[in-house]
């Protein structure tokens, strides 16, 4: 099945009939990039649900602090014991849920879905390859991810519960917490980092080596470019976190003091350690991953948005090269902005100034990308189907998320906003109505290629409108709360801290600011309910959905639509040669308003 070979259609077909590896090899220990992509997708969707559930319980504690959690409170007490005494959420449990909500959403939900699932399924198809370069490495990548995920989940049930030091796991807090949860977290992370390393190597090698003849670099669909840059970010940014994780593990189990300073006092006693370590070192290493990681979350979604947007505006993308160069600028710059997370650590004004400058510079390519998308809509004959709705909503949502980041990037305004709900609002606007909307667009868009059936449009639109409304109802008030001074990581929603009884006290927050928690929580639960149409639609469509009548139901130009539906093992039934760019829609003089890339 080499694209270069001249095997005939019939001979290739013959080969497919003989591909019958049995159930286990086909669905569980598969080396087929499409099956692995679907494995990643399903696992990641489950983790997104778990991550959401943790947050839904935390939102109860924020809105109604100290009251037993309805519905699940009794179950929590049975499973977790004293941490949820009488169905109430203890401070430790709140911390554990908060840390694991972040960890699960970022490392087990979004990245696997955006990068591994969509990348695995779509990239080889879009470049005209029969599979990934290293299919068995690909399988190992998924398995390592799965093991890491299981370790994270099991850590909830060990004595003392899961990690409690936030998804950032700052030392010394993470090190001196006397429970084993953090150790499990580190070991789980090492598996996840291994998984992403294997995946990243595979993606880059595939895109460089397995492009079909004629698929030159500037003919690559933007989605492939996005995955390419993302893979480099994962390849180069994750190892420093692995190094940091190894050092924190040494601090936990071998008694070293990498991140523990001399004279550290724990529970009013000077700790029996050698000291000499640096808490700042952890933060530097963590954010050296942490910031590129943010772009790992957003770039694949931008890639999906570009595909869906061109397809449904029936127009070529405006400024393809600007997009690609902006992508590279973002990829490079994302490695030198990390310390803008650390303005308040006292690392010095000179360093702050440097990172504030690079942070402002990185917003330029991001704005270019967004602008290119907006201009591409101009004069298009737009089809408002479900994937397109999610795509169109992505643009302003990501815009809000990006623009609200600017005050955080300046070190003087960050002094006020640091560690408040403003940060949570900013970050979630980028990732929740931003990236996740992009991912929903991708699911609705490529679902017919993966299953041969369309998802229901009506329920898709219900899902979209409800999600859009509730996403904004959750995160918009957080900006207000944050600017009012409400800090994150407070397990009672700020009731104790704010001295609400004495509104004149310094640092007091108004009652209305605290009451906002209730509205936000209701919106958060409603957002969960709004996903029910999606879940039902997803499964019902898989077996009962309207069958596609063509291999190219969206009338798209890119190569993944030139395969049979669903694509067989080895993907293409005949050798593919690429003759044109990725988005040749509405070319004047052509009979159809789309010209596939492999059309001579």
């Amino acid at each position, binding site marked *: 099945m080499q694209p270069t070979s001249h095997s005939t259609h019939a001979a290739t077909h013959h080969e497919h009939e003989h591909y019958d590896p049995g159930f286990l090899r086909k669905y569980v220990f598969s080396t087929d990039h499409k099956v692995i992509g679907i494995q990643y997708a399903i696992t990641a969707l489950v983790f997104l649900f778990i991550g959401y559930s943790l947050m839904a319980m935390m939102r109860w504690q924020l809105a109604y602090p100290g009251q037993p959690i309805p519905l699940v409170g009794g179950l929590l007490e049975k499973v977790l014991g004293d941490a949820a005494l009488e169905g109430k959420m203890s401070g430790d449990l709140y911390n554990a849920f908060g840390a694991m909500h972040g960890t699960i959403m970022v490392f087990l939900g979004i990245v696997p879905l955006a990068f591994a699932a969509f990348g695995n399924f779509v990239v080889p198809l879009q470049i005209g390859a029969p599979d990934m370069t290293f299919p068995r490495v690909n399988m190992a990548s998924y398995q390592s991810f799965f093991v890491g995920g299981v370790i994270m989940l099991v850590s909830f049930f060990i004595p003392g519960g899961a990690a409690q030091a936030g998804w950032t796991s700052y030392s010394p807090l993470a090190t001196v917490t006397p429970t084993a949860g953090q150790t499990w977290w580190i070991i789980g992370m090492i598996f996840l980092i291994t998984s992403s390393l294997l995946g990243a*190597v595979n993606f880059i090698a595939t895109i*460089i*080596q397995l492009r079909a003849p004629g698929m030159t670099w500037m003919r690559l669909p933007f989605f492939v470019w996005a995955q390419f840059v993302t893979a480099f970010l994962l390849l180069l940014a994750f190892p420093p976190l692995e190094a940091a994780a190894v050092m924190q593990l040494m601090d936990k189990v071998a*008694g070293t003091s990498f991140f523990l300073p001399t004279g550290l006092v724990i529970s009013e006693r000077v700790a029996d350690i050698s000291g000499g370590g640096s808490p700042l070192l952890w933060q530097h290493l963590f954010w050296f991953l942490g910031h590129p990681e943010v772009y790992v979350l957003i770039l694949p979604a931008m890639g999906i948005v570009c595909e869906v947007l061109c397809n449904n505006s029936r127009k070529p993308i405006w400024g393809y090269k600007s997009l690609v160069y902006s992508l590279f600028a973002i990829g490079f710059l994302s490695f030198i902005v990390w310390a803008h997370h650390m303005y308040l650590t006292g690392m010095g004004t000179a360093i702050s100034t440097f990172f504030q400058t690079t942070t402002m510079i990185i917003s330029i390519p991001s704005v270019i990308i967004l602008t290119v998308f907006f201009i591409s809509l101009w004069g298009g004959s737009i089809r408002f189907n479900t994937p397109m709705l999610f795509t169109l909503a992505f643009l302003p949502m990501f815009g809000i998320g990006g623009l609200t980041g600017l005050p955080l990037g300046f070190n003087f305004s960050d002094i006020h906003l640091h560690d408040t709900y403003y940060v949570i609002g900013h970050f979630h606007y980028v990732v929740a109505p931003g990236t996740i909307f992009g991912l929903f667009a991708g699911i609705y868009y490529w679902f017919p290629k993966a299953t041969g059936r369309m998802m229901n449009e009506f329920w898709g639109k219900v899902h979209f409108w409800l999600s859009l409304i509730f996403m904004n109802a959750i995160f918009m008030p957080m900006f207000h709360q944050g600017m009012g001074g409400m800090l994150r990581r407070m397990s009672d929603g700020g009731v104790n801290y704010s001295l609400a009884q004495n509104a004149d006290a310094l640092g007091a927050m108004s009652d209305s600011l605290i009451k906002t928690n209730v509205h936000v929580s209701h919106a958060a639960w409603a957002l969960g309910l709004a996903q029910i149409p999606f879940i039902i639609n997803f499964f019902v469509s898989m077996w009962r959905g309207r069958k596609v009548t063509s291999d190219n139901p969206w009338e798209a130009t890119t190569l993944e639509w030139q395969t049979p539906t669903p694509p067989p093992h080895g993907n293409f039934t005949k050798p593919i040669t690429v003759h044109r760019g990725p988005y040749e829609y509405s070319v004047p003089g052509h009979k159809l308003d789309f010209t596939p890339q492999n059309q001579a």
Partner: protein
Amino acid sequence: MEIPYAVQPREDTGLYNAKLGIWLFLASEVMLFGALFSSYILLRVGAAPGAWPHGLLNIPIGTLNTLVLITSSVTVVMAWASLKMNQLSRFKMYQTLTVLFALTFVCIKSYEYHDKFTHYEVVLKDGKSMTGHIEGSPMLWNLTKLNVKKIPSITFTPEAAHGSHDAKSEGAAGASAHGEPTKIATSDIVKLECFGPFHNTYLAIYFTLTALHALHVIGGAIVIGYILFTSGRWWKKNPEQLTNRVEVSGLFWHFVDLVWIFLFPVLYLL
């Protein structure tokens, strides 16, 4: 279905898949060790004046290990060159030598580790502190262990005069400066600690870096050994792919060597 360019290089990139894959993997490894080296710099720069220890390691042994690893780098190239010249038996000899050198390196490293785990600092109730060895060379003892095992006293051979604690006399190379063995009652000891990773941040980064490097040596040796054992079969089946495998594993091996070339001066000499 066959993956293209699994063995033959692609024309426009000039690479076969695995060669590109290993270079990418090594880029990631550079970032891993780079982060640890950066941590070393940050910890050292941040240490209190005079607190960073010197001369804790045995330089002649470190030099020997450096030579062992550099020689293995030569044999790994010779193994690949032999295959290119169609000499399977010569390949096998060089491949075996590489594995043996790797094992030698690990053995010498273990000896050095053992040396640190049996080298103690003891602090007494009267405020005296000294470094040296406990009779019987027990590993990884501390005060808690003495109490749990109910050992009433230890026989301690200090390296230099009691009470002196300057960096010079701590050197393992200065073993000739041993003092007289003394009996110390457990009840007189405030703190007993060997020169393990918990002793100070220098040793912490030393153990972390060298242990991670040693894991790479062991992993590399396993892969090179595996290729050696299956080489007869692969030579018949697909000699070109065997050569590629040797090249790729060789690239990894050179990287492991290179890391040591940085580790040795940084940890032993500077």
